[in-house]
């Protein structure tokens, strides 16, 4: 038995020593590689910066003629620059990438067996906004690896080809679906031409698809879809979808949204929907929503009353006047009842007080400064 121990000790010592040496070796190799890469990248980086500073007027040929090793050392930085550039400089840098064959290689890599290579290729094609790659990127929306699918969605968003909208929507309805927020953002990036597709998808049987399309319509500011979104708010069977409809009616900012939103805050509706609709009434930015919001200030549900008060605050002067009027009325009632204005405010007055106070300390104060928070001081203010 002692022999087993002895052998184990020898083996352990050997592995410990090897691990220690491994740590040193890893550091040495990394440092050497970093030095070499920095050396190789220094020249191309200077040329790259001069090229984009000059809006791509001069130096493109030199960049295309760079040896592969030097270009590879600077490529990550160049790709990073792409996201920060606009206009001529962006187009010129893209042309350098295309002339160097980066897009061709990336298109090839989209069919690589390695998921990392497929994802990297999709990222590059998105950065270069290669429209030719859209069908292949759409194919990657059903890739067996989630991370490849995610990168393909982002790439499609950067390219902004509206023909990809249906494929993106369809990708939401699969067993391992894509992140909703990502698809929503991408659908919005595809531009206003997708409005018809998104509007049609509001009848999709899958609730998640309907919610994503509502959010995308909201981001696009698709005012032409207000009636369809309002119908979803009234009739959809899924609460989360109705909440999304309410929120996006607020984003769309059309006056025609007042009636469905006012209906949604009514009693008997679920509290999260009423809170979302109250918030949306504030987002609309029109004083027509004030009476409905004032009625919610005393609601038993904290979130509903809270959202109503802050929606009134965001509405500016008409909302703030309404909040003050609530406090005035309560103060008058208290005086009439002989309780004095220092009495504990009601729930409605409490929420009104909170919203008014926040309005007074914001960057653009729309209300008088708060006192120590007593009802009489605020009413007087």
């Amino acid at each position, binding site marked *: 038995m002692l022999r087993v121990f002895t052998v184990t000790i020898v083996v352990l010592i050997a592995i410990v020593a090897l691990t220690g040496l491994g740590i040193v070796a890893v550091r040495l190799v*990394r440092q050497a590689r970093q030095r070499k890469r920095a050396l190789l990248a220094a020249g191309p980086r200077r040329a790259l910066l001069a090229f984009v500073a000059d809006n791509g007027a001069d130096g493109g040929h030199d960049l295309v003629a760079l040896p592969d090793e030097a270009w590879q050392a600077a490529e990550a930085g160049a790709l990073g620059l792409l996201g920060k550039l606009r206009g001529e400089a962006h187009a010129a840098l893209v042309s350098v990438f295309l002339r160097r064959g980066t897009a061709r290689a990336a298109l090839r890599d989209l069919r690589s067996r390695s998921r990392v290579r497929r994802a990297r290729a999709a990222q590059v094609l998105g950065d270069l906004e290669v429209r030719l790659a859209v069908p292949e990127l759409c194919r990657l929306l059903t890739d067996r690896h989630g991370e490849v699918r995610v990168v393909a969605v982002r790439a499609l968003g950067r390219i902004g080809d509206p023909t990809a909208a249906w494929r993106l929507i369809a990708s939401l309805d699969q067993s391992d679906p894509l992140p909703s927020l990502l698809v929503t953002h991408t659908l919005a990036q595809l531009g206003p031409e997708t409005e018809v597709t998104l509007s049609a998808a509001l009848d999709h049987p899958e609730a998640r698809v309907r919610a994503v399309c509502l959010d995308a319509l909201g981001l696009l500011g698709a005012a032409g879809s207000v009636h369809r979104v309002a119908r979803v708010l009234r009739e959809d069977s899924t609460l989360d979808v109705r909440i999304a409809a309410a929120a996006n009616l607020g984003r769309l900012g059309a006056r025609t949204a007042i009636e469905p939103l006012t209906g949604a805050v009514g009693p008997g509706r679920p509290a999260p929907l009423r809170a979302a609709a109250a918030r949306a009434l504030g987002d609309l930015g029109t004083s027509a929503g004030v009476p409905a919001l004032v009625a919610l200030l005393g609601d038993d549900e904290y979130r509903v009353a809270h959202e109503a008060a802050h929606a009134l605050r965001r509405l500016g002067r008409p909302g703030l006047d309404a909040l003050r009027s609530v406090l005035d009325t309560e103060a008058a009632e208290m005086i009439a009842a002989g309780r004095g204005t220092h009495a504990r405010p009601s729930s409605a007055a409490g929420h009104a007080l909170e919203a008014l106070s926040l309005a007074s300390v914001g960057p653009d104060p729309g209300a008088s400064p708060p006192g120590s928070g007593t009802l009489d001081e605020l009413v007087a203010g």
Partner: protein
Amino acid sequence: MIIREILKVTDWAIFAYFVALNSGYLVLICMAGLEFGKHLRRAPFAGADDMFRSPLTLPVSVIVPAYNEGAGIVAALQAMTALRYPRYEIVVVDDGSTDDTFERLREQFDLVEVPRVVPGEVPYRTQVLSVHVARGNPETLTVVRKTNGGKSDALNVGINLARHPLVCMVDADSVLDPDALLSVAKPFGDDPLRVAACGGVVRIANGCKVIGGRVVDVRMPRQWLVRVQVVEYLRAFLMGRTGWSRLGGLVVISGAFGIFRRDLVVKIGGMAHDTIGEDAELVVRLHHYLRERREDYRVIFVAEPVSWSEAPSSLRVLGRQRRRWHRGIAEILRKHRRMIGNPRYGRIGLVALPYYVVFELLAPFIELAALVLLPLGLWIDAVNLEFAWRFALVAYGYGLLVSLVSLFIEEVSFHRYPRWSDLVRGVLAAVLENFGYRQILAAWQVTGAAGAWGGRQAIWGTMHRQGFDTAESLPLETAGRR
């Protein structure tokens, strides 16, 4: 004769236990290594910038409980207000500080009192005295003053006042990397339907240079006691938790830096008042709740970037911290004992919690038992000297190997310590850990667990801070904790 035989068998059992314990660590560390490799290969196309630019990125409420943090609170908040994240608010809960925590905040951020309606969505036991917001930017910074009620109570008040769908709990003395919030919230954007909570790694800030609320130069601490903790944090927190995350069995998210879905935290009743390990307890309760409802969910851990925190540099404070931590483990395992070994709770019930019982809760007891029984065996001749020294060498040698593998993986993946001297100090700390540190740690942990089982009152004690090496106003004096 019988005693000798019993001792002999016990010594062998202890030896087998050490081998199993270190093998468990090694497996977790290897899993972490695989995860880091995956993370690094994917970093170029992970989409952090897209998340930063997206209007749909979920907003976060950062909750900062503070008790007598006057020395460093302003700098910590300045750093937090400069985080790279599209939309977030900071809710500082001053838990009845007796120092100038609030005054410093009021002066620096031009706070004004506002009457806020504080909902009771999660229970809190104390009284909210006042709510303040920053003039000119009321949406971003809220400071709540309340009577003292402990960290859980302060966090619950913060959760009640949080307006955003994600709540991130951060210690007031933590220094966050600029991208920390973006990284720790990213899993919620990638997998919004399933991710319930995400923990971020906490590293030791002692010895590092902090400028403008950012760690700009990472160095090994000056004291060996803290250097040993650096190795321990790497092995147990960075590697261990990443490994558990990969296995789908993460049950600990540090209270110093963790992010949760607010609606779920509200549904399970917020932070528990009856345990000192409230951060881990919240995660176990979350697992309990979601597993009972057969929800498809994930609790994950991200290894980079990080939150930097000051580690105890004296034995007295370290002892108090470790007693508290182990007491927390004992309380949580007792509270959720029905989950242990219960197939209804999947990997949490069948793997993670049993592991915590056998290799976390009991480990210090076995370690101390070995320290007593091995010499006893030698004394009564149940084991011979040849066996004893080989036993000790293999047991501790295996432990050393585990620590070195952690350092190796750190060097391959994040290599946060750029100096050669720090590398050597790290390796030496891994060796020194076995001579005294582990043994005294075991003693503290045993008293911590005994405190939980004996029902003694839990006390946070005072954390005397040394402060970071800084050119600016980070904590240089002492600050306290409950």
